């Protein structure tokens, strides 16, 4: 099977201008997602997962600036599109769902109308048909009693219910790519599974590509074909889920795995990763941003980062891989 990439991000770098200096939030980030494939972006908080997604969607804060890179999607570079053209694509061809569904919905607009807004905007339905089409979407994300729920405000619904509404908004126009930014954070574990299954199922039906952003490696392994590990704005390792779990090559991935609760790991064996993220404002950042925390550090680590292929679809950015 020859895979066709739905999204190919190449050499993406993003800077944030802050009062205390320029923060190099992303540096030379590259990965791709094939049609129908689910790829996880994992890493600790501040590793640049969400910024990657925001940059691709073109919804970075005003302080953030893309300094290099391309994001090829459907034959065009998303990063080079005008805001107007990009807005046409957003919600129709590429969609995003966020964490904290309760705050991610307009608190004073009926949820049915919020879905209808997107449909009307992208020509998915006429103004007259939109309310009915919105109810169809609510059915699709399996909200019981959709006619009544369409009239509800977000504060009248549970967190899981709100996340279903978010999914309905994101998938209303049948996008080719869905970015799910920690969609299950703040939901209880059973709801988590239901939401993940729902996303997986709806993606499978339409051959949609999915980027799943999480800090939960176990969740990523369960639902994703490939896992991309990020650390301090770099991609340190990209591998099929199984391969990563069997044999993580980057020291950071290995530490992340050791910090992930699983069947075989006892609570005592769970290890926290020593050290923190480096200060990304420093002008003299080492080529490998993990080197400050790394036990396998050597002289070679001062050279520019390599991209070593260590297996099928398995790439690691490390001079001394495990």
């Amino acid at each position, binding site marked *: 099977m020859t895979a066709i990439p739905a999204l190919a991000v190449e050499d993406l770098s993003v800077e944030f201008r802050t009062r205390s200096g320029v923060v190099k939030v992303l540096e030379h980030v590259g990965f791709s997602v094939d049609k129908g494939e689910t790829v996880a972006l994992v890493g600790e908080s501040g590793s640049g997962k969400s910024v990657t997604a925001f940059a691709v*969607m073109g*919804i970075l804060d*005003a302080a953030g600036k893309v300094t290099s890179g391309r994001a090829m999607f459907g034959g065009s570079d998303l990063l080079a599109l005008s805001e107007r053209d990009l*807005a*046409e*694509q*957003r*919600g*129709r061809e590429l*969609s*995003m769902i*966020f964490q*904290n569904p309760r*705050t*991610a*919905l*307009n*608190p*004073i*607009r009926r949820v049915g109308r919020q879905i209808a*807004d*997107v449909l009307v*905007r*992208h020509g998915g339905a006429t103004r007259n048909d939109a309310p009915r089409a919105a109810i169809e979407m609510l059915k699709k994300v399996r909200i019981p009693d959709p006619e009544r729920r369409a009239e509800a*405000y977000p*504060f*009248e619904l549970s967190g899981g219910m709100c996340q279903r509404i*978010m999914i309905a*908004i*994101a998938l209303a126009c049948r996008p080719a790519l869905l970015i799910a930014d920690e969609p299950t954070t703040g939901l209880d574990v059973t709801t988590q599974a239901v939401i993940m299954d729902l996303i997986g199922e709806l993606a499978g039906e339409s051959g949609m590509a999915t980027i799943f952003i999480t800090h939960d490696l176990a969740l990523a392994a369960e639902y994703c074909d490939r896992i991309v590990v990020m650390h301090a704005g770099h991609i340190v390792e990209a591998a099929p889920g199984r391969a990563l779990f069997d044999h993580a090559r980057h020291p950071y991935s290995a530490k992340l795995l050791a910090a992930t609760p699983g069947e075989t790991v006892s609570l005592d064996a769970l290890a926290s990763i020593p050290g923190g993220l480096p200060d990304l404002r420093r002008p003299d950042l080492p080529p490998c941003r993990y080197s400050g925390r790394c036990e396998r550090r050597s002289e070679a680590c001062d050279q520019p980062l390599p991209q070593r292929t260590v297996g099928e679809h398995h790439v690691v950015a490390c001079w001394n891989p495990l």
Partner: protein
Amino acid sequence: MLNLLLSRLATAIPSIVGVVVVTFMLTRLLPGDPAAYFAGLAASPQAIAEIRTKLGLDKSLPEQFVAYVGDLVQGNLGNSLSTGQPVVTEIATRLPASAELTLFALIVAVAIAIPLGVLAAVKQGTWVDHLCRIVTTAGVSLPVFFTGLLLAYVFYYLLQWAPAPTGRLDIFLSPPPDITGFYLIDSMLSGNLETFWSALRQLALPAISMAIFSLAPLARMTRGSMLAVLGSDFIRTARASGLSPRTVVFTYAFRNAVLPVITTLGMVFSFLLGANVLVETVFAWPGIGLYAVNALITSDYAPVQGFVLTMAVLYVTLNLTIDFVYGLVDPRVRLES
């Protein structure tokens, strides 16, 4: 919604009762003897005592209070000592003048402040934002009587663009037929453009002085509230859904941002009711503020009480309206009732 209104109405009753008690006490405890004032400087002690008996001031405070409440219930606010007219009719004829001035000022302020605040937030850091900052700083730093005097000095005395600050209408014109009591509306309804124009010209300066004063908190609150909302998660969702900038800013952001602005509007409105007293004095505006000032100076109880009561009722009505509007905009408030 109706429940909300009724419950708020119920909470308003104690405030009204409180105001009745306080106005009564306040005017009795103020220094100055109205009987002596009205008897004149040359009056004999007997004459003063006679007037005091006539006014009921010789009775004990509780007795006076019972009489006062009894009159109130019958809609009788007493007679003004200086004019001899019933206070109710005097307030009724003067209230529209104040109301027209205040409402017009408020409309002008809202029409400028809200677009300015929204623009300043959407185009944060640009010249609109700086303009907004200058306007709000100037607005809060200039006392309203000063703005009034300054405007009258510049536009009437120096430039002679504005008419003399002497009331609601050019002295050669007769007021329009009394329909709403608002000269602008009444003159339009009776098709008298000349009166309308004159009323507008008279209204302009006092209204602008009050508008400048109330613009500042409104613009500042609009800007701040818009900024907060524009940075919130659901706006990011709206943008990520590709909604047009117009929908994002107006339908999504503004409707949420307007909630604290409504609250501020209520506060500004009550400030304006107070500022009325000063502006009406500067522009000889025949409203209830000027009426109250004159009554205070002459220790004329009844009009002062009437004024404070009217104001209290206005405040309560205003707060009810604010609650109602708030409930219309925010479904979460409706639920609480």
